[in-house]
C-alpha cells in the first residue's frame, strides 16, 4: 500500500528543507525524501568547521528555518533541531528512481522499491548528481560501494579503488596510509596517466606505489566482479585478482537525464541550461515544481526563500511577491517614471529584442544580475580601451559609436532594442570604441554571467548576438567606410569554428584564400626557416589573418595555429574577394597590413641567417610562454632569473599591500632559459575562476584586473577551476604594528606575510575568521601600480601584456 501525500519534496538541501518546513507549518500533508541518512548532504559533506556564508546580504531570508553565516556544524545543527520542532515528515535513505503520473496523482518510485503517491512534487535535488556506476557483471554485489566515509574501518582487506580523479586517489591513499591496517590496495585507471587529479595527489600516489603500499594499474578496467575476486581487462588481456571490496569513484552524472525522464523540458540543449519554469517555479510538467540549485539558484538564501515561496504558491497564495522584490525595486527607484517592478520588467523585455523570449521568472533573475541606467545626450557610456566584459542593451533611445579614434565627431548610431559591448563579452579584450548616448537613453548593463546565462537559455538570443558580434567585429577591424549592408554576403557565408590548442587553421605551403578572424583566444604564426619552425608573431583576439595569400595570391606563406582553445570566424575567400572588388579602400587597407606583416617576416628571416641561435631562442621562448597559458593572459608577471636574487621582496610587498596575504609565489612555476613564470594571476581573457562563482563575486575591474569582491563565500570553486593554481583560500591575519615600530623596536613580525605562529598568537579568542578566496588584483586602486614590480630591487620582475612581450622588438634588441 503506497503512502499518499499532498506534496512530496525531493531533496533535503536548503531549498527542500525550507519547503518541507513551510508545508509542515501550514499543516499540509507532505513527505521530505532524502537519499542519505542525514539532512542536507551537500553541506554535510563540507569539511569540519567550514564557515558557511550567507550572501547576498541584501536579500531578506524568508523561511521557517533560521540561517545565518557560521560554522557548518551550527548551521546543520539549527536545521536538524528546527526540522524536528516543526514536525517535518522526513524519510531518510529514500533515493528516487522515477516519477510517473500526472498532477494530482504522481507516483514516486524509490530505489528500495517503495512507492509514494503525491498530488504535487517539488524537486530540490541540487546539481551534485549521482555517482557514475560500475558497468560490468557483478556491479550490484554488496561489496561494491561508491563512497568511503572512514578509511580506518577496513582491516586486512584486498580493496580495489576504481577511478583516476582526486576522490579515488585520496580514498586509496587513506586506505593504505596505516600499514598496521594491513589492507592491500589497488587503484584502477582506465587511461595511461592521472591527468585529472591534482599534482600533489599523484605524487603521493606514486610514492605510495614505490613503497609497495598501493598497486597502480593503468589502462585497466573492471571486466567482472565476483565475491572475493575481480576480473580485470588489461592491455595484455584478462587477469583475476583477489578483491574483498570495490570502491568506485568515477565522478557523477548531472541529474539532467533523470529530470527529463520526468517530463520536464530544459530551456536549451546547452550544458549550462536550466529547466523551463513559470513564475511560480512550476516546470513544463504541470504539478512538478523545481527550486534551488537545479533551478539555477546556487546560493543558500535563494534556495530557502524559494522553498518557502513554492509551498505558498502550491497552497494557493497567488499574491505573494518574491523575496527579491525590494532588490529590484531599488534598481528602478532612481527613475522618475513611477512604474511597478513588473511593469519595468515587461518594458525591458518587450523593448530589447534579445530579451523578448524570456519568461517573467527568467526576467527577474536576469535583472538581479544587471543594472539599468539613464544617460543624457552625449554622455559617455564607455570609452575606447576601457576593459569590460559586460553587454549593454538599449531599452530606450539610441547610442552613437565613435568609429574613428582621432575624430569623435564621426559616429555610427545603434538603435533602440539592439545591443552593444558584445566584443568585450565574447573576446574579453578591451573596448574597441567610445560609445555615448545619442538622445536620452535607458541602457541595461548585463553582467557577463547574466549574458552567458541568457545565451544558454535562449537560443534565439545566442544566434542574434553571434551575428551582431561578427558584423561589428568585422566593421571595427576593417573600417574603411564599410557598412553592415556591405558585409551581409560575407557574414552569411561565414562560419564560427572552435579550434583546439595547437591545431592549424592555416598551414604553410597549402592552398587557401579564406580569411580568419580570431574571436576568442589567440593564435601564433610560425614559418619554416632552415627546417625549423620559427615564431613570427602572436595574434590576440580581435585580429585577423590569411590576407597575404588572398591579396598576393599563391600558397600560404606561414602556419597559423591556436595558442589556446580558440574560436575563429572563417570568411570564405571568394566572397571576400567580391567585397574587395566593390570596396577599393578595403583593398588598400589590406595591402598596407600585408606589407607590415611581410616586413616582420623578412626581418626575422634575415636575422635567422646571421643570428641563428638568437632567433631559435626567441622562437623557443615564445613557445614556452604559450605552452604555459600566456596565450590567454592579458597581463602576466614575468621574472628574469638572470636578475632575480631570490629576496622575495615581491611577495612581501604583495602581502603588505593586501591585508597581509601574498597573492604570488615567486619560486613556484615554470622556467625556460631563465625566464620564469611565477605562480601569479595572468588575468585571463576568459577567466576560468569566473566560470562557477555562486555569489558572482569575481569581476573584471576598470584596469583589466580580475578581482574577487567581498561577496566571496569561500566555497573554493575558483581555486579548483584555476588551471594555474594562483588562487589561495585563507583568512586575513590580524593587523601588524606599523613598519617603524618593527624597524626601531622590533615589534610585530616585520615586512611580508606573518608566519602562522604570529597569526595564531595574535588571534582574538573565539573569533573564527572565515577563509576566503584570495588572488592578485593587479594592485587596483593603489597609486603606482603593482607592488611586486615596484618592490623588485633588481628589475627582475615586470608585468606585461603577452603581445607586447612576444613582439618583434625583443628580437630587434637582442640582435642589434
Amino acid at each position: 500500500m503506497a503512502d499518499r501525500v499532498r506534496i512530496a519534496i525531493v531533496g533535503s538541501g536548503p531549498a527542500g528543507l525550507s519547503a518541507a518546513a513551510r508545508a509542515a507549518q501550514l499543516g499540509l500533508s507532505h513527505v521530505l525524501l532524502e537519499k542519505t541518512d542525514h539532512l542536507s548532504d551537500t553541506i554535510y559533506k563540507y569539511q569540519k568547521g567550514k564557515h558557511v556564508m550567507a550572501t547576498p546580504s541584501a536579500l531578506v531570508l524568508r523561511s521557517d528555518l533560521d540561517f545565518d553565516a557560521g560554522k557548518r556544524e551550527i548551521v546543520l545543527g539549527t536545521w536538524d533541531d528546527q526540522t524536528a520542532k516543526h514536525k517535518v515528515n522526513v524519510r531518510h535513505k529514500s533515493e528516487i528512481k522515477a516519477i510517473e503520473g500526472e498532477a494530482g496523482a504522481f507516483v514516486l518510485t524509490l530505489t528500495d522499491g517503495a512507492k509514494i503517491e503525491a498530488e504535487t512534487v517539488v524537486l530540490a535535488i541540487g546539481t551534485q548528481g549521482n555517482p557514475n556506476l560500475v558497468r560490468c557483471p557483478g556491479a550490484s554485489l554488496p561489496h561494491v560501494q561508491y563512497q568511503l566515509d572512514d578509511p580506518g574501518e577496513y582491516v586486512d582487506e584486498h580493496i580495489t579503488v576504481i577511478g583516476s580523479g582526486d576522490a579515488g586517489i585520496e580514498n586509496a591513499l587513506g586506505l593504505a596510509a596505516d600499514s598496521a591496517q594491513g589492507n592491500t590496495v589497488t587503484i584502477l585507471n582506465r587511461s595511461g596517466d592521472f591527468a585529472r587529479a591534482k599534482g600533489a595527489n599523484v605524487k603521493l600516489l606514486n610514492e605510495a606505489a614505490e613503497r609497495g603500499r598501493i598497486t597502480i594499474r593503468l589502462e585497466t578496467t573492471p571486466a567482472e566482479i565476483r565475491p572475493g575476486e575481480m576480473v580485470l581487462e588489461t592491455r595484455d588481456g584478462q587477469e583475476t585478482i583477489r578483491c574483498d571490496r570495490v570502491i568506485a569513484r568515477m565522478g557523477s552524472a548531472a541529474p539532467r537525464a533523470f529530470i527529463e525522464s520526468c517530463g520536464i523540458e530544459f530551456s536549451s540543449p546547452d550544458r549550462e541550461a536550466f529547466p523551463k519554469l513559470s513564475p511560480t517555479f512550476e516546470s513544463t510538467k504541470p504539478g512538478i515544481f523545481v527550486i534551488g540549485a537545479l533551478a539555477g539558484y546556487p546560493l543558500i538564501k535563494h534556495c530557502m526563500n524559494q522553498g518557502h515561496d513554492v509551498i505558498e504558491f502550491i497552497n494557493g497564495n497567488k499574491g505573494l511577491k518574491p523575496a527579491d522584490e525590494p532588490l529590484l525595486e531599488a534598481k528602478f527607484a532612481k527613475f522618475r517614471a513611477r512604474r511597478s517592478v513588473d511593469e519595468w520588467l515587461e518594458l525591458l523585455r518587450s523593448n530589447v529584442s534579445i530579451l523578448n523570449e524570456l519568461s517573467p521568472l527568467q526576467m527577474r533573475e536576469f535583472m538581479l544580475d544587471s543594472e539599468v541606467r539613464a544617460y543624457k545626450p552625449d554622455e559617455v557610456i564607455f570609452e575606447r580601451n576601457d576593459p569590460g566584459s559586460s553587454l549593454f542593451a538599449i531599452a530606450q533611445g539610441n547610442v552613437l559609436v565613435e568609429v574613428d579614434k582621432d575624430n569623435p565627431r564621426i559616429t555610427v548610431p545603434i538603435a533602440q532594442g539592439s545591443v552593444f559591448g558584445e566584443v568585450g563579452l565574447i573576446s574579453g579584450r578591451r573596448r574597441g570604441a567610445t560609445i555615448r548616448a545619442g538622445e536620452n537613453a535607458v541602457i541595461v548593463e548585463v553582467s557577463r554571467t547574466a549574458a552567458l546565462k541568457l545565451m544558454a537559455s535562449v537560443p534565439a538570443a545566442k544566434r542574434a548576438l553571434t551575428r551582431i558580434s561578427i558584423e561589428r567585429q568585422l566593421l571595427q577591424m576593417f573600417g574603411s567606410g564599410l557598412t553592415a549592408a556591405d558585409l551581409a554576403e560575407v557574414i552569411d557565408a561565414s562560419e564560427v569554428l572552435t579550434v583546439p590548442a595547437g591545431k592549424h587553421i592555416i598551414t604553410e605551403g597549402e592552398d587557401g584564400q579564406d580569411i580568419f578572424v580570431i574571436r576568442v583566444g589567440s593564435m601564433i604564426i610560425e614559418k619554416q626557416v632552415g627546417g625549423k619552425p620559427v615564431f613570427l608573431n602572436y595574434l590576440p583576439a580581435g585580429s585577423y589573418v590569411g590576407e597575404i595569400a588572398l591579396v598576393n595570391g599563391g600558397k600560404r606563406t606561414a602556419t597559423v595555429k591556436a595558442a589556446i582553445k580558440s574560436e575563429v570566424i572563417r570568411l570564405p575567400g571568394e566572397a571576400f574577394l567580391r567585397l574587395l572588388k566593390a570596396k577599393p579602400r578595403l583593398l588598400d587597407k589590406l595591402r598596407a597590413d600585408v606589407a607590415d606583416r611581410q616586413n616582420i617576416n623578412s626581418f626575422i628571416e634575415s636575422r635567422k641567417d646571421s643570428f641563428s641561435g638568437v632567433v631559435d631562442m626567441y622562437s623557443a621562448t615564445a613557445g614556452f610562454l604559450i605552452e604555459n597559458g600566456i596565450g590567454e593572459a592579458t597581463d602576466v608577471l614575468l621574472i628574469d632569473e638572470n636578475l632575480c636574487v631570490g629576496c622575495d621582496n615581491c611577495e612581501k610587498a604583495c602581502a603588505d599591500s593586501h591585508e597581509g596575504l601574498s597573492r604570488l609565489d615567486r619560486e613556484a612555476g615554470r622556467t625556460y632559459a631563465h625566464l620564469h613564470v611565477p605562480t601569479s594571476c595572468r588575468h585571463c581573457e576568459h577567466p576560468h575562476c569566473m566560470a562557477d562563482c555562486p555569489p558572482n563575486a569575481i569581476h573584471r575591474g576598470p584596469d583589466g584586473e580580475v578581482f574577487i569582491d567581498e561577496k566571496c563565500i569561500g566555497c573554493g570553486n575558483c581555486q579548483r577551476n584555476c588551471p594555474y593554481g594562483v588562487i589561495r583560500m585563507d583568512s586575513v591575519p590580524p593587523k601588524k604594528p606599523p613598519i617603524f615600530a618593527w624597524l626601531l623596536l622590533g615589534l610585530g613580525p616585520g615586512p611580508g606575510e606573518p608566519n602562522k605562529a604570529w597569526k595564531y598568537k595574535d588571534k582574538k579568542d573565539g573569533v573564527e575568521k572565515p577563509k576566503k578566496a584570495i588572488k592578485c588584483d593587479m594592485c587596483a586602486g593603489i597609486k603606482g601600480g603593482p607592488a611586486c614590480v615596484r618592490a623588485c630591487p633588481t628589475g627582475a620582475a615586470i608585468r606585461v601584456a603577452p603581445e607586447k612581450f612576444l613582439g618583434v622588438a625583443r628580437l630587434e634588441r637582442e640582435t642589434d
Partner: protein
Amino acid sequence: MRDRDLDRRGRVREAAMHEGFLRHRNFRWLKIATALSLAAIAGYGFADVTPRPNGGSWYGYTLGTVAVLLILWLTLLGVRKRWMTRGRWSLKAWTSAHVYLGLSLIVTATLHTGFQLGWNVHTLAWALMMLVILSGIWGIVAYAALPKALSSNREELTQTQMLEGLRAIDRQLHEAAQPLAPSQAALVQKSLEQNVFAGGLFRRLSGRHRGCATAKALRGIRREGGQEKVQSLLERKSGMLARLRRHLQLKAMLEVWLYVHVPATFALIAALTAHIVSVFFFW
C-alpha cells in the same frame, strides 16, 4: 592590432622588457654619479683654499655636507625596501641610484679628506665608509654573477619542494632499510637523522660537506654490497642533497655581503656622528 601601450588613464605602461638595476633608464644614475664626481674633482682643482685642501675649508665643508647627506639618503634604501607605501616609486630605480651614488662617494668623501689620513676618528669614518662601499661592490658582483646559477641549479623546484623531496626519500629509505644488518641499518639511521641546515655559515658557503652521513652511508653500503634498493635510494638522496646544498650556498652567497654592508653602515654613521661632533666641538 590594438594599441595597448597606454592604459586607461593614459599612463605609459611599464616597459615590455626586463632591464636590470645597473642598466636602469639607460644608465641614468651612472651618468648623474659620474657628473657629480667630475664636478667634485673639477671643484677640487679650482677651489682656492689655503694653506692646502682640507676638510675644514669652505670647499671641504661643501663636499662633507654633500657626502653626509648622501650617506644618510643611501641608508634609507633599507627603509624604502621594507616600507610598502603607495606612489609611483620603483625600488629598482632606488637601487640603481644607491649603487652609482654610493660609488661616487669614493670621490666626494675622499676629496673631502684632502688626503689627510691618519689614526683618528675622522679617518675611521672614512675607512668604514670605504668598507661599506667595498662590501657593496662585492654585492653588485654577487648580484650580477649568481642569479643565473641559482636559477639553473633549482630547475623549477622550490626550496620547499626540495625539502619535501628529501623527506619523501627518507620515508622510503626508512622502510627499505628495515631488513638490513644492524651495522648497515645504523649507517642509514645516521643519514636519516642528518639535518641539512646544520653545520654553520662556513660550511654552507664553502659547499664542502666532509663527513656527510648520507655519503658515508652510501660508501659503507656499497662496500659491503648491501641491498640495491637502499643503494639507489641513497644515491638519489645524495643527488638531491647536492642540489639543495648548492641552492642554500648560492642564497647565502647572495646575502652574506649584507652582513658586512649593513653593520658597517651603522658603525659608519656612529663614527660619522663622532667625526662631526668633534669637528664642531673643537672648532
